[in-house]
């Protein structure tokens, strides 16, 4: 095949081992601009959305393992009556940190990983709108997560539950520093989410490839957009609550002190006004992934694309009006309860739309059951179960029997594990070849999938029974005299759930094995378009070059890539699709018409430095106010360094990403 040549003026400056190209005079900063493209520095100071996406993913998987170990300890403790694996104190820390880790340090950042990596690719952009803010967001998330987890070594983790209801979160009731770490850690990751949200919203709204109207935008990008709006408005609410918690615990304010006249329900309202949109923040990215995968493997466009878009937006919107369904037992008064009950039922409609349209996407299709497709169908099945159990407790009186029992634990694990996590795994299998240029092993993937499905149903399925049999959540022990002895006795099903959690863990372990197996030496490179995909991210090399696209793609269709490969040769209402081009040809066409002068923003030291100032300030709040001051000074310096530095090093100093384009030539 043809060797692709970049325009000659680019090829001249190939040598990137010499960082002398970026000069301090032009960047105004204290430091020279980092320009490494390989080695650890290229990761630490990168502002490339793809590298950041991968780092988000790696860190999220690390925290997934941490949260998983916490979950296993919980299940070990509850496998039999009067468990003694954990003390009451450690158990309370364990379930608090399990939820916090899984929600804030696994599912959200994992979704952020995909959003970072694929949103610019899906909309045909070269990077996000604010690459340095993007880098800052990642480092803030990482430092926030690490900060939060250092509490384990500094007197114990938070022990008030992830919902951290007041006044149980006050110092008198939770004397260790765990809750302080929790609150400050979430503030830091909140900053990360907020900056990320602004960045992605601007990226999606402003940086779409020519021809890509909003209604031609890939559905994953759409769902990410909705999620970013949810974050944009939800994070400040929890920020207020967390500030009050910090003032309460560290500076003697009385926002939640009942003896000072405070109303403990204030926290609950603030928390759930954030907390319910948070649920959609967790599942919508995964819905987007599923909505990408189903059409690809059914060889049909997404059924009712506009409706899926609108239902996603509707879920995002109505999601703001249902927060009090977490508080049906809180004593709100019958009018509010009835209103929130009905609003909650209403949100089932757009959710139902998604399930129906997914199924109708498969209807009449030409379905190939690859591992990503298995996971996607798994999401539909498992999420449907979670959605239906959700309807049963939208009925407020019924919910007063179920809330705070294991029935709720079952419900939201079907939603979050079944809906969100399975979808994220679908995404990993689907996009792995794009991100790393290697296929994950399909056979291992199938075993991985089935073990995960069996494991999750064994773990969370019995919790429906345990809950309806009256076992509350968050109890460090259960006893036999409340277990009953019929077929539905709590003891047996607790044991089943615990065994199931090990099956589930084995399933997840296989995923890591699969990564290892698939990346051993000698495994083949992935084909350019292994799934016969439909969207823009596949119109480039795998992994994509640093500048993503040689030429920004011109978009004419919702499934642009599909329509470049296939042509309808039918007539008179009869359709007959024929392949007219291979992916290789489509990509080669783009490369042949590559843009000259691609300017990518330059790496920077400031994002990581600014992010690093955050945990310093947080430790300062807990231990020493001088430390807080020190962190603030670092933050200020970073702000100035950042502000005085141009986004892109000037042209004559710029070190172009030519290395990657050479690789293209080699295998194209």
């Amino acid at each position, binding site marked *: 095949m043809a060797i692709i040549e970049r325009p000659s003026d680019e090829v001249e400056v190939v040598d990137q081992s010499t960082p002398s190209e970026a000069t301090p005079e032009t960047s105004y900063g204290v430091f020279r601009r980092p320009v490494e493209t390989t080695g650890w520095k290229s990761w630490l100071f990168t502002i490339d959305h793809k590298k950041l996406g991968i780092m988000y993913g790696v860190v999220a998987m690390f925290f997934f393992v941490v949260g998983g170990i916490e979950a296993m300890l919980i299940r070990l403790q509850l496998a039999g009556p009067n468990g003694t694996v954990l003390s*009451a104190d450690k158990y*309370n820390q364990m379930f608090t940190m399990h939820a916090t880790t899984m929600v804030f340090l696994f599912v959200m950042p994992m979704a952020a990983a995909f959003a970072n990596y694929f949103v610019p690719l899906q909309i045909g952009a070269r990077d996000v709108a604010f690459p340095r803010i993007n880098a800052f967001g990642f480092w803030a998330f990482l430092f926030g997560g690490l900060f939060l987890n250092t509490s384990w070594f500094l007197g114990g983790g938070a*022990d*008030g539950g992830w919902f951290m*209801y007041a006044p*149980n979160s006050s*110092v*008198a*009731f939770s004397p260790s520093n765990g809750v302080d770490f929790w609150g400050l850690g979430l503030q830091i990751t909140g900053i990360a989410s907020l900056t990320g949200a602004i960045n992605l919203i601007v990226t999606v709204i402003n940086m779409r490839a020519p021809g890509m109207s909003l209604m031609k935008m890939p559905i994953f990008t759409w769902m990410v957009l909705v999620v970013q709006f949810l974050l944009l408005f939800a994070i400040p609410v929890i920020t207020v609550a967390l500030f009050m918690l910090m003032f309460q615990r560290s500076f003697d304010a009385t926002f939640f002190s*009942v003896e000072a006249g405070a109303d*403990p329900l204030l926290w609950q309202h603030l928390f759930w006004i954030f907390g319910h949109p948070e649920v959609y923040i967790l599942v919508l990215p995964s819905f987007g992934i599923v909505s990408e995968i189903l059409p690809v493997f059914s*060889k*049909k466009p997404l059924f009712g694309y506009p*409706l899926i878009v609108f239902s996603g937006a509707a879920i995002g919107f109505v999601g703001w009006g249902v927060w009090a369904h977490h508080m049906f*037992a*809180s*004593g709100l*008064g019958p009018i509010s*309860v009835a209103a929130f009950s009905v609003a909650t*039922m209403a949100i089932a409609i757009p959710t*139902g*739309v998604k399930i129906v349209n997914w*199924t109708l996407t*498969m209807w*009449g*299709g*030409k379905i*190939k*059951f690859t591992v990503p497709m298995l996971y996607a169908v798994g999401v*539909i*099945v498992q999420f449907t179960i979670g959605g*239906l*159990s959700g*309807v*049963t407790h939208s*009925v*407020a*009186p*019924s*919910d007063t*029997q179920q809330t*705070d*029992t294991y029935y709720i634990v079952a419900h939201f694990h079907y939603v979050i594990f079944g809906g969100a996590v399975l979808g994220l795994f679908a995404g990993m299998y689907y996009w792995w070849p794009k991100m790393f240029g290697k296929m994950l092993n399909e056979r291992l993937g199938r075993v991985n999938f*089935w073990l995960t*499905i069996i494991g999750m149903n064994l773990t969370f399925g019995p919790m429906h*029974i345990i809950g*309806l*049999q*009256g*076992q509350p959540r968050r*109890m460090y*022990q259960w006893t036999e005299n*409340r277990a*009953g002895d*019929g*077929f*539905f006795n709590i003891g047996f099903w607790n044991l089943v759930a615990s065994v199931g959690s090990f099956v589930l863990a084995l399933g997840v372990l296989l995923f890591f094995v699969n990564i290892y197996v698939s990346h051993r030496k000698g495994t083949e490179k992935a*084909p350019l378009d292994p799934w*016969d995909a439909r969207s823009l991210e596949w119109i480039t090399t795998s992994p994509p070059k640093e500048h993503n696209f040689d030429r920004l793609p011109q978009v004419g269709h*919702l499934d642009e890539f599909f329509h470049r490969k296939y042509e309808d040769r039918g007539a008179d209402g009869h359709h007959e699709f024929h392949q007219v081009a291979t992916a290789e040809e489509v990509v080669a066409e783009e490369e042949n018409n590559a843009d000259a002068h691609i300017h990518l923003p330059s790496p920077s030291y400031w994002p990581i430095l600014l992010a690093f100032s955050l945990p310093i300030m947080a430790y300062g709040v807990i231990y020493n106010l001088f430390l807080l001051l020190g962190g603030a000074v670092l933050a200020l310096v970073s702000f100035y360094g950042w502000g005085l530095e141009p986004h892109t090093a000037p042209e004559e100093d710029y070190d172009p990403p030519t290395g990657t384009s050479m690789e293209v030539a080699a295998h194209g």
Partner: protein
Amino acid sequence: MSHQRVHDRTMSTSADSTSSLKIMSSRGRKAASTVAGLSALTLLAGCATDAPQDTWKPAGANAQKIQDLQWPVFLTAGIVGVIVMVFIAVCVVKFRDRGQPIPDQAHGKAWLEYLFIAIPAVILAAIAIPTVGVVMALNDTDDTECVINVTGQQWWWEYDYEVGADGTICGYAPSEVSASPIITSGQLVIPADTKVLLRGTSRDVIHSYWIPRLNGKRDMVPGRVHFLRLESDTPGIYAGQCTEFCGLSHANMRMETVVLEPADFQKWLDNELEPYQAPAEGSLAAEGETTFIAQCSRCHQVNGLVDPNNGNLVVSYPDQFVYSGAAPNLTNLMGRNTFAGATWDLLTPECRADVWEANPEEFGDKYLAGVSQDCLNEIDLREWLRNAPAKKPMYADPALLEQSDGKVRGMPYLGLSEDQIDQLIAYLLERK
């Protein structure tokens, strides 16, 4: 080269579609989930189980209202679930890639989409209307016949029986007039067929009162008063558990509601108000009384207890030692059959089973008999007296309690000798 690749891909496509193994496994999964769904439904309809906190086994009017509302919802959800699963299964089986041509790239059918908005909307509306009705009905308290104050505290419940304007308690006139109020803990005793209204709050963090067989749960929030109705026509003990996470011993905060026939309730009431009877002089129990006054009476009240040494009435002042301000009243400890937040039984397993499984006619007598020497579960009670925080995790170590002025959050370690424990048990056995 690229053409070669296209060819390869077609080959692999056909190879995929001939693999029958995957069809089988998918079918198997669908079948399994259908079976699971159906058996779950049978379970929900049948409720053939006897966990004491079964939420599907109402034993009173309020829980019954919830049950009548929720089983059709579960059934509907189950049916919808099965239909969706079958639909998915059909898609998965029918439209596998068997080499069929690439389907039409249509983006949907409007009428079908609207239909699938309309169907769930109708179903949900049908659920919403009765839901609103039941919410209102459960909160209607106009016909209340009996008000009992309930207060949550880390990690037990206190009940304070309100004396009505007519001098009765829940409509029952005590046969002796007593100055002491009825304050108990752990087991809430209510008369059968009476619309009881709990008026609840909390002394520290949020707790939640829940007797699944009598009604849904209601959070008891410090600084606020919340109401919960309870009612049952069947005498017996109904188990419950605090359901709002309330700290270290959340798991050990339980409660039971005891329903007694009117005549039995009258007996219970009279017994509660009986004057204090000092132990016989020189008995082990009398030594126990002295120990109790020395070791326990600062926090635990026994109504009418008089210090034989000085003839003074002994009044507890737990607010000086306990952060939340109270400790269980032990006047009639052995009249109830649990202790320490209803977490442990005062009855041996056999005697407990005898009371719990008694039929409604015999239940009253068995319950009112209280705890006898033979039936006393000495093992747990001894462990408790020896070292309470070791048995029930509590912030009882003053070293941890700088923030609450060194006040304990539950019963601390008292360092009692075995002799003292013997004396105390003998003394407490007479408290009924």
